[in-house]
């Protein structure tokens, strides 16, 4: 069944969209990430214009994050204080991101910019995560190996403006969380992602938050950052396609629930190895596009007369 998308102005198969949403939802439920980093490139592949894919991807992440946060709330896995601080940074970063997005669109380099962001950030995070999770898998196999302390004092703890985060059991400066929030908000705006894949490791390794509250808190602030991004894109460029988002969300929520169940059967270290491999695969696929000679050197985009 073909479906004509009113904003993207392309006709695509409705079941393809539902399936796409379902697969991404499955993975996001399994790994506890929003899945934006998968959905946006996949939308590029099926011919949705990049600007629409980025804006609608953000809208889809809102739905999957709300679904996830509700599950985490019941387990008391959300640190609202930390979420609020991250959010303050996130809104600033998102505003800057939308602005840069517009500049790059005008310069004709937005595709390159998005692609490079994907390759660099996904590649980096994927590599770090793979190395870390492989190491912890090894450690689990060799009993008696030294265990890394979850809470290590570093230069981060010497910064001013300290604040108590009760749910995380932390007493640290608000500067690092605001900066991390801003970085993730920036990425959310230009890549159409929630940024969970960068937020989660940053919270664990940079802020030293307990793993118990990391996913819930990350999802909590992603809801607001992606919501803000969605409205910004809707207002500045009218690129949010409601029908496309609805299809992806419908597929996604079902997939996410199945993914969560499968995820519970796997061990945390195995999950992290799989997730890092997935992230690296997406990054590699986009890198190949940049390196291999394209079949068509010319591209056409809407123009504005001077």
């Amino acid at each position, binding site marked *: *069944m*073909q*479906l*004509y998308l*009113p*904003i993207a*102005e*392309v*006709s695509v198969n409705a079941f393809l969209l539902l399936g796409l949403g379902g697969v991404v939802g499955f993975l996001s439920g399994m790994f506890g990430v929003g899945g934006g980093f998968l959905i946006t490139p996949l939308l590029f592949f099926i011919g949705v214009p990049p600007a629409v894919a980025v804006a609608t991807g953000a*809208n*889809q992440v*809102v*739905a*999957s*994050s*709300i*679904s996830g946060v*509700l*599950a985490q709330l019941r387990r008391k896995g959300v640190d609202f204080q930390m979420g609020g601080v991250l959010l303050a940074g996130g809104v600033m970063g998102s505003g800057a991101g939308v602005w840069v997005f517009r500049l790059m669109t005008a310069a*004709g*380099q937005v*595709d*390159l910019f998005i692609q490079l962001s994907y390759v660099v950030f996904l590649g980096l995070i994927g590599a770090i995560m793979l190395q870390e999770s492989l190491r912890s898998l090894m450690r689990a196999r060799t009993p008696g190996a030294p265990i890394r302390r979850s809470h290590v004092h570093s230069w981060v703890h010497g910064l001013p403006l300290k604040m108590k985060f009760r749910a995380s059991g932390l007493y640290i400066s608000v500067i690092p969380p605001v900066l991390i929030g801003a970085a993730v908000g920036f990425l959310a705006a230009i890549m159409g992602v929630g940024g969970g894949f960068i937020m989660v490791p940053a919270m664990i390794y940079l802020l030293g938050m307990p793993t118990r509250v990391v996913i819930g808190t990350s999802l909590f602030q992603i809801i607001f950052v992606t*919501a803000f991004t*969605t*409205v*910004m*894109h*809707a*207002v500045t460029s*009218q690129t*949010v396609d*409601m*029908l496309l*988002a*609805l299809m992806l*969300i*419908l597929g996604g*929520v*079902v997939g*996410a*629930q199945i993914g969560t169940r499968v995820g519970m059967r796997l061990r945390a270290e195995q999950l992290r190895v799989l997730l890092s491999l997935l992230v690296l695969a997406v990054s590699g696929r986009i890198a190949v*596009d*940049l*390196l*291999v*000679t*394209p079949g*068509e*050197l*010319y*591209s*056409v*985009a*809407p*123009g*504005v*007369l*001077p």
Partner: protein
Amino acid sequence: MIRALELMLALMLALMLALMLALVPALPAQAQDPRAPVQETIVAGLSHSRVAITADFDGTEILIYGAIKRDGPPPDDPLDVIITVEGPSTPVVVRRKGRVAGIWVNTAEVLVDSAPSFYAVATTRPLDRILSDTENLRHGITIERVIRAVGITAEAEEAGDFILGLLRVRANEDRYRLLEGEVELTEQTLFRADVILPANLTEGTYKVRLFILRDKQVVAQQERSIFVRKVGLERFIYNLAQDQPLIYGLLSLVLAAVAGWGASAAFRLVRG
């Protein structure tokens, strides 16, 4: 089913038209100077002049038909018909990728003032055999003559390559098509052509132009319009996004929130 009926109706109309035209000119023709060139005009119709883009829109086929009315016997030299269908034009930027430090980057661009979002040319015979260059220039029949790109030679070297690139990209998207020999002409009088409008259609008024040619010269032309509009849900969503972007953005969020909450609640119910 409805489409088939429309087609039949259109064909019957065309036939009746032709019969009438064949009978009528017999009378006044006597009064005219037999040596004066025969005046020919086009009478044309479309199977439907409105295209509604609905949620399940998957492209549509338009039958363009007509007859040639003349006030005397047809001249000896062969008659040809060209039909063009032109979608709304917009300015476009054409970019070319080049290799910079090992990766493929957009390195050059030109601004084309106006390029149609859709363009089809249907003819009775190969274009170069029925249309002269001057007539093409005067009436703007082939796609190269419709695209307006003033002063692009100053913007980049090999500016012509950019236009060729644009034509290739849009041809691959089925937006630009040349349908040589697709117009059926019967008895130098009746003609018909089917033009497929693709699924990735842009809204607006589509201009249909019909030309009849003799000896590579246009002897008559005619214009018709097709109105392409989004309707129903598509219309509602598109208008809301354009007119009330803030409300639209917030509504998208509500939709996402309801779906997210609903899924979580529904699954808890299933799980017991």
